[in-house]
């Protein structure tokens, strides 16, 4: 009796050890990648952020000077942060609402709906550079599609990307065109809502509005939450479109945080300064994400289990 228990335990620990070795071996690509491309860079970047560092000579420790300079002498830091907050506070919610509305529209059981789904989804597949070039053309003040249409109804359109007041809204408009990925995610969520919920509500004489707020919205709230969190992280890194279309202009109205950071690092070769900016970005993103997560208990509904 005792003997078999001991040998069972031995076997158990042997299996556990074998599993540990196999597990680590299979996970080793990621573990190595994590050390080289994440863990070490995190430490190095923290050190750079406290250094004068051009990327050529060795970094020279200067304490918190970069941070002090960012907060006291860099107007562009605040301007770029404000521009970026516009994307987080205006563009992101607009995008979330638009993609949910489109998904609900596409959730109708009518013939040919797959054709419409394809049409709404395709723009999100256009490579960023191609769509940036396309929209520069659409926004052309004299001969772009927008102002040609506006002119045909007697309205003189704005200069869009050339006007500090219109450049950000123009980028938002372009973003809405490419909202298809989010639409598909919502659509899948909507299709998972049990039809019986709606039927029961209809028997009780519920209106369409009340069905939306009492059934649809709670049921897909986990998806909204997921899209919101990923959207916040993504919005704070808004870069490519501004780099290609406006170079941050006009009058720095589209100089976003990530663009300012990129220019500090790879145009001014001020790697230490840019690293400090990166850490500030990280902290801001983290705080926003945590706030959303904290409030999520109040508005995200998780149905039974998985």
């Amino acid at each position, binding site marked *: 009796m005792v003997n078999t228990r001991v040998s069972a335990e031995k076997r158990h620990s042997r299996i556990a050890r074998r*599993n540990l070795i196999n*597990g680590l*071996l*299979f*996970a080793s*690509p*990621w573990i190595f*990648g*994590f050390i*080289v*491309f*994440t863990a*070490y*860079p*995190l430490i*190095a*970047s923290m050190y*750079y952020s406290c250094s004068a560092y051009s*990327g050529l000579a060795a970094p020279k420790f200067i304490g918190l000077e970069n941070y002090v300079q960012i907060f006291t002498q860099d107007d562009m830091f605040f301007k770029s942060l404000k521009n970026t907050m516009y994307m987080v506070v205006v563009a992101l919610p607009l995008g979330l609402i638009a993609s949910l509305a489109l998904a609900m529209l*596409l959730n*109708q059981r*009518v013939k040919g709906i797959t054709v*419409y789904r*394809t*049409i*709404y*989804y*395709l723009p999100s*597949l*256009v*490579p*960023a*550079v*191609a*769509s940036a*070039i*396309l929209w*520069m*053309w*659409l926004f*052309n003040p004299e*001969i772009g599609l927008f102002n040609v249409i506006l002119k045909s109804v007697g309205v003189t359109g704005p200069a869009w990307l050339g006007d500090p007041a219109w450049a950000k809204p123009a980028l938002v408009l372009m973003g809405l065109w490419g909202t298809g*990925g989010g639409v*598909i*995610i919502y659509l899948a969520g909507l299709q*998972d809502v049990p039809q019986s919920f709606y039927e029961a509500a209809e028997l009780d004489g519920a209106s369409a509005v009340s069905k939306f707020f009492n059934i649809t919205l709670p049921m897909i709230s*986990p*998806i909204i939450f*997921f899209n919101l969190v990923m959207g916040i*992280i993504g919005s*704070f890194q808004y*870069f490519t479109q501004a780099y*290609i279309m406006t170079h941050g202009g006009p009058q720095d109205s589209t100089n976003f945080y990530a663009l300012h950071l990129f220019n500090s690092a790879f145009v001014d070769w001020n*790697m230490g300064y840019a690293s400090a*900016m*990166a850490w500030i*970005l*990280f902290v801001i*993103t983290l705080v926003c*994400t945590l706030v959303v997560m904290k409030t999520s208990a109040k508005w995200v509904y998780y149905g039974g289990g998985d």
Partner: protein
Amino acid sequence: MATAERSRRAGYARSRTIWAYVVLTLLSVVFVAPFYWMVVTSLKTDRQIFEVTTWYPDPVMWSNYARALKFIPFARYTWNTLVICVMTMIGTVWSCSMVAYSFARIPWKGRDALFLVVLATLMLPGQVTMIPVFMIFKWLGWIGSYKPLIVPSFFGGAFFIFLLRQFFRSVPNELSESARIDGATELGIYARVILPLSKPALATVALFTFIGGWTDFMGPLLYLNDPNKYTLSLGLQQFVSQHGAEWSMLMAASTVMALPIVILYFAAQRTFVEGITLTGIKG
């Protein structure tokens, strides 16, 4: 009574359907218009672009495409982009499936804690690690080569590890157990049981990695400096900054760059939709 109620309902349903079509179609026009304008512009003469705006090209200037393809070294850029895409596809599918297998199918001590670290890296803005990673590649002498764009894919990415782990977990345990009784090693179970059953998920990862590589701009911008090695994204962007007003050529080039992805979508529509759903929902 009942008949009246039913016909009232049917009437309501019909008018609802009609309204749905009206709204769907109007919005479709909005979504298609930029595409239409892109293709139409790419086929116009300069006169039709700059002097008299027309809604369709007349005559149809197919030669704009030939001109754009000659002006921008398209074949070279396409080849460069394909090399990067295919290599990162191989790297990502291999590394992410290995790592996901470990997290999904092997019960080892510390696994779940480490998986939380994998998920946490999703929250990390790329800007924080960008500069040190750049310096590593500089130290290795890899700046100007494709290695900084390709090699990291061989070390797994949090997003696809997460996706594949979800999928691998849904494979019944009996299958691996019976293979194990037959003497299969962990590597054998991974290669001969799990991978063949996970083709849809692997296809999703391959597809989205390919598209990611095809559209990536920041990576090539950071690491490539020789115009002969430019990708489509970077080459096109450089072309814009030099010849900003050549709209017909630019639209032709944009069309040519977007086309492969659109074709890919129609060829693999199911993989697309399932992939987006998988990545987006099960979070």
